[in-house]
């Protein structure tokens, strides 16, 4: 199980690093093509927007794994360890409920709807279902990470880290 988690989070990290590099290069190319080549590129803006959706949605799964999401920890921090552990399990379940219902279920419907209706983007002609497929994918990853967190919480007596932290 732990090996599996490590492998998918390593792939996730690589994809995100590459996406960030790609987004910088895409917009740089847009500026370059307009000023130096005098022929503004027509597809860079759309491409960059789609990469941002992928960074935002897939990155959300990564930030969940690294426990970097913003939250209010003042009350949970004052709880006794057993209560804190139970609360943490409840939090993980809440996150999984959201990931399963909105991201996996709603997201999959959104993807299939766009594929069936052949909704394509204006410049690249990409099917929007493909763009939106980041949502169910991220939902599945969040569910996997969340289940893994619950297993660890059940095995461990001490609740070390909070699910989210108060820092940006």
């Amino acid at each position, binding site marked *: 199980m732990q090996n599996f988690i490590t492998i998918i989070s390593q792939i996730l*990290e690589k994809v*995100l*690093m590459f996406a*960030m*590099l790609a*987004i*910088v290069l895409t*917009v*740089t190319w*847009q*500026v370059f093509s307009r000023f130096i080549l005098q022929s503004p590129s027509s597809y860079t*803006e759309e491409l*960059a*927007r*789609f990469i*941002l*959706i992928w*960074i*935002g*949605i897939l*990155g*959300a799964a*990564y*930030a*969940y794994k*690294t426990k*970097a*999401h*913003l*939250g*209010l*920890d*003042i*009350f*949970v921090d004052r709880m006794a360890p057993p209560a804190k552990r139970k*609360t943490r399990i*409840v*939090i993980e379940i*809440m*996150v999984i*409920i*959201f990931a399963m*219902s*909105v*991201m996996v*279920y*709603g*997201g999959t*419907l*959104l993807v299939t*709807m766009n594929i069936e209706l052949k909704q394509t983007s204006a410049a690249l002609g990409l099917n929007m279902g493909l763009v*939106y497929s*980041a*949502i169910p994918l991220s939902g599945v990853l969040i569910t996997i990470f969340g289940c893994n967190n619950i297993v660890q919480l059940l095995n461990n007596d001490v609740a070390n880290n*909070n*699910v*989210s932290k*108060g*820092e*940006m």
Partner: protein
Amino acid sequence: MDMTAIVLLVSFFILLFLNVPVSICIGLATLLSLVMHMDFTPAATTIAQQMAGGIDSFALLAIPFFILSGLVMGQGGIAKRLIECAMALIGSLPGGLALVNVMSCMLFGAISGSAVAATSAIGSFMVPEMKKHGYSAEFGAAVTASAATTGMLIPPSNILIIYAIASGGVSIAALFVAGYLPGILVGLALMTVCSLYAIKHKYPVSARLPLSVTLEKVLAALPSLLLVFIVIGGIIGGIFTATEAGAVAVLYALALSVGIYKEIKVDQLPALFLKACETTAIVMLIIGASSAMSWLLSYTHIPQTISEFFLMLSDNPLVVLLLINLILIVVGAFIDMTPAVLIFTPIFLPVAEQLGMSPIQFGIMIVLNLSIGLVSPPVGSVLFVSCAVAKTSIHKIIKPMLPLYAVMFLVLMLVTYVPAISEALPRFFGLIG
């Protein structure tokens, strides 16, 4: 108020107090309220659609770029040069080191958009330096934290981009220019407190540096400050959009820290990219979830209900605006700035516009107001980072913070009731009518 609003509010706060990530709180509360109006399947699909749609914006692309350039500048030796420049310019005034701290935070804010980055980059150098010269760690931490918030107003500023989206299309260029005067006003107000504090406690005043040294330090900081002219000049001059300016800022910061200062190695870059992805994703998930929530709000006409309620309480703009400010200060103490701007802009902006306030002025007001929340307990993120950097505790920092809160509130009142502070500069540059 109707049932939907109550379900939305109650479920949001229960989840928030449980320490569920704030983006998930917004998403789940929206889902719960939406199933009161439609079946589960269309509700879940709508939220998924709104999440992706909310992120799908070219203007939002500026955010990962300013996050990445801020990370690079924090580690790339740029902060150090800004501090030395400020030291050479105002270090010999009464309370010199505290003033240098404020000015360095403002300069850092002028090239990056993150108050937390400014706090750790400037504070980790300035607080020990202030301690060495007899200032208390608490005072150093208080000054750093409050000064770092000026970066929220001084462009480039991610929160102003987020506000531009939340308000439904206020010009980012106009907002950026509008932020300068209020940001500088806050900085000057904080500096005044610092000087008075230093005179009262008879802190030593350092000698003036010879002119040649001053010039040398200013010159060393020029390449960093040149970024301001490229980014902001380019946006105001209409040469490029805020997003394109962000990409240029990333390249410039990389060229400076990797190529010229050589303080970041090429093999450190993937980790910086990943960190920028993480921070971007946190913000984007909040934006996506909030956009689903504001869809729900307008679907159920909640903003109109709240707007009517406020205007029923009083038709005096002075009273209503004060009330909005007080509510936002309480909100800001509990909820981070990004979700607070996204949640409360669609609710309060219509009220403010009814009272004749422009969306530009409202944007500056809400950001300045929530900046106070960034440095107030119980959850002020900047305050916590500052305490950690200064190795002091939240209990001790409150006393030196009090006069700083007072002047921040004073400037907030000025910004609320004097439109010219926010609107004069954008009008001068022809960015608003």
